[in-house]
């Protein structure tokens, strides 16, 4: 397990190196002055620019420039937004938690529906249930997310009026911003309307999270179905049958855990996909997350913000990836061994 952890740490450092390198090179690739791209100081006087050039070591070679950039990152300085002239790290800190919340809830919904449905399809392989599940999941996968989002708002918010269509929480609730994750903030606050606020936040997150979850859930259905079919076909299931265990016991004691091992490994890969869908959905549902902020920055050609936002978002995806890897290792004794760990 120690070796497994060290390997992940190694991977983490290497990936962070590549990510920062990419984000650093973006400042050269974007049109305009590199120094302004990297710092965001569009209104700087020549004198201020001199100071900046000194800070970012633009006169030295590229390696030193990169090191200067990294040291800025370590100080939490991602520059300022070209559009609003606000500190980008502050902006990210205020927008990223909302995205974390939304994507994790969506991932949870996608897994809690997708995986069991996939298992059921595998158990009912070649029967009507299996065919229906496959067809519906195919359909779910092919629906474009912006169309689905608009449709969901039209039906559930406007026509039926069941759920709110925009934002994270009604303005009537005053919840102090502590962690940025709305649900945790609500639980931490000592407002007398805590419980109502919690319900309101749940109502707000439900629709966008479901819209995001649909496509990944259909992928989980397929992954879980294939994994379960492989497991059910394996030797140890046959041996368990010969032991005289009932079908129920085989499924609950052996098949589900082994199939989960296969599915969990692919969940990490799907998460990047899910975040992309979340970015579009945040725009549709006016969700105050980093995806919407990033898309707005792209429209405003705010190069500094794009760099910072991408770095933050990809780090988040990568951290989730690693966490899922650890869950995978906890489920699978084979992965914990050094000789098999990849």
């Amino acid at each position: 397990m120690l070796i497994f952890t060290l390997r992940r740490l190694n991977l983490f450092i290497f990936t962070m190196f590549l990510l920062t390198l990419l984000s650093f090179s973006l400042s050269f690739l974007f049109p305009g002055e590199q120094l302004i791209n990297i710092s965001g100081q569009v209104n700087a006087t020549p004198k201020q620019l001199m100071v900046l050039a000194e800070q970012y070591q633009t006169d030295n070679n590229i390696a030193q420039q990169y090191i200067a950039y990294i040291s800025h990152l370590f100080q939490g300085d991602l520059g300022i937004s070209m559009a609003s002239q606000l500190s980008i790290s502050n902006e990210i800190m205020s927008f990223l938690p909302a995205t974390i919340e939304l994507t994790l809830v969506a991932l949870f919904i996608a897994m809690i529906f997708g995986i069991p449905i996939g298992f059921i399809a595998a158990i009912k392989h070649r029967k009507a249930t299996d065919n229906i599940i496959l067809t519906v999941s195919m359909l779910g996968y092919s629906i474009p997310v912006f169309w689905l989002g608009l449709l969901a708002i039209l039906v559930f918010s406007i026509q039926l009026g069941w759920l709110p269509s925009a934002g994270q929480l009604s303005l009537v609730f005053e919840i102090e911003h502590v962690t940025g994750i709305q649900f945790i903030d609500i639980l931490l606050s000592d407002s007398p309307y805590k419980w109502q606020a919690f319900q309101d936040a749940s109502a707000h997150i439900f629709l966008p999270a479901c819209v995001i979850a649909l496509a990944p859930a259909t992928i989980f259905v397929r992954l879980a179905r294939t994994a379960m079919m492989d497991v059910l076909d394996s030797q140890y299931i046959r041996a368990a049958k010969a032991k005289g265990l009932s079908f129920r016991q085989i499924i609950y004691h052996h098949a589900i855990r082994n199939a989960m091992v296969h599915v969990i490994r692919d969940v990490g890969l799907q998460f990047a996909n899910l975040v992309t869908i979340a970015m579009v959905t945040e725009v549709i549902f006016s969700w105050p997350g980093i995806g919407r902020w990033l898309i707005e920055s792209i429209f405003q050609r705010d190069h500094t913000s794009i760099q910072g936002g991408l770095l933050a978002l990809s780090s988040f995806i990568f951290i989730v990836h690693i966490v899922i890897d650890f869950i995978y290792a906890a489920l699978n004794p084979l992965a914990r061994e050094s000789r098999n760990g990849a």
Partner: protein
Amino acid sequence: MNLLDIRNLSIVLKSATNPILAVDRVSLTMKEGEVRGLVGESGSGKSLLAQAIIGVLDEKWHVDADRFHWRGKDLMRLSVDERKAIISKDVAMIFQEPMACLDPTMTIGMQLTEAVDGEQLTGYFWQKNQQRKETAISLLHKVGIKQHKICLKKYPHQLNEALCQRVMIAMALAKRPILLIADEPTAAMESTNQGQIFRLLASLNQLKNMSILLISHDLENVTHWTNTITVMYSGQFVEAGTTKHIFEQPFHPYTRALVDSSPKSNSGLPAKSRLMALPGSIPILQHLPIGCRLGPRCPRAQQACVIAPKVTNYHGHQFSCHFSLKGSY
């Protein structure tokens, strides 16, 4: 009374266009306390037959038999569930590739306690867990694993092949079977380990009067441990009789070739001369010859062999060949 009496069991690989007869009317009988060898080249359907007996083949196979009696009870008349209940109570099987037969995500201890039959436990339910554990440990001792503490905590991939095989045998013993089917129990094992496993099985046979169906692709390997032997080739019945008869006076050309190709019978040959062996190799399922499937490789084959021969019984020694070697001894 025979313990197991199977007559003309066929196994068909189902497919919409052309179903394949993988096992073609094979008969097998076993007496109480007997060790029978089931021998045949790789791909001759030994494992299929064994899996059909304990009923773990999946839906893509169709099994049919003229007779399937277990301790005098006609299992063909029973429903699938009743059949399963009887068989899984009395018959245990250890599969080929023991490592693949253990759940990779569970410790040996958990899998072993799971195999312990709840009906054998006597205590109240709060005592049962402890009892299960004790039973598991005593099972490990029975198969010669002394360090049960370490073994119970291990995952299958942390054990070697021979240890896994012992654990599989322990699991099979958990329900105190009357018949144990051992599918290539010593494949891919060093010869010292092979001897140990065979001795273990032999002692179980003697002490517990447990019948054993010992499956192997190597005739010589099992002769020492068996009373009787059934030979199969490419899903067809070849010959059955006592080990002595099979080894010393085989009536069927295929058995003759198997005996002749074993190193023991070749030991008198001068150095660097050719070993006796049949030309060619076993046909694949998709291209089975008609009639006697040995035909293309058989040194005695004649035109009549395009029609599958019937089983002939000669003083309890059965064989299925038109031109047997019976007259040549």
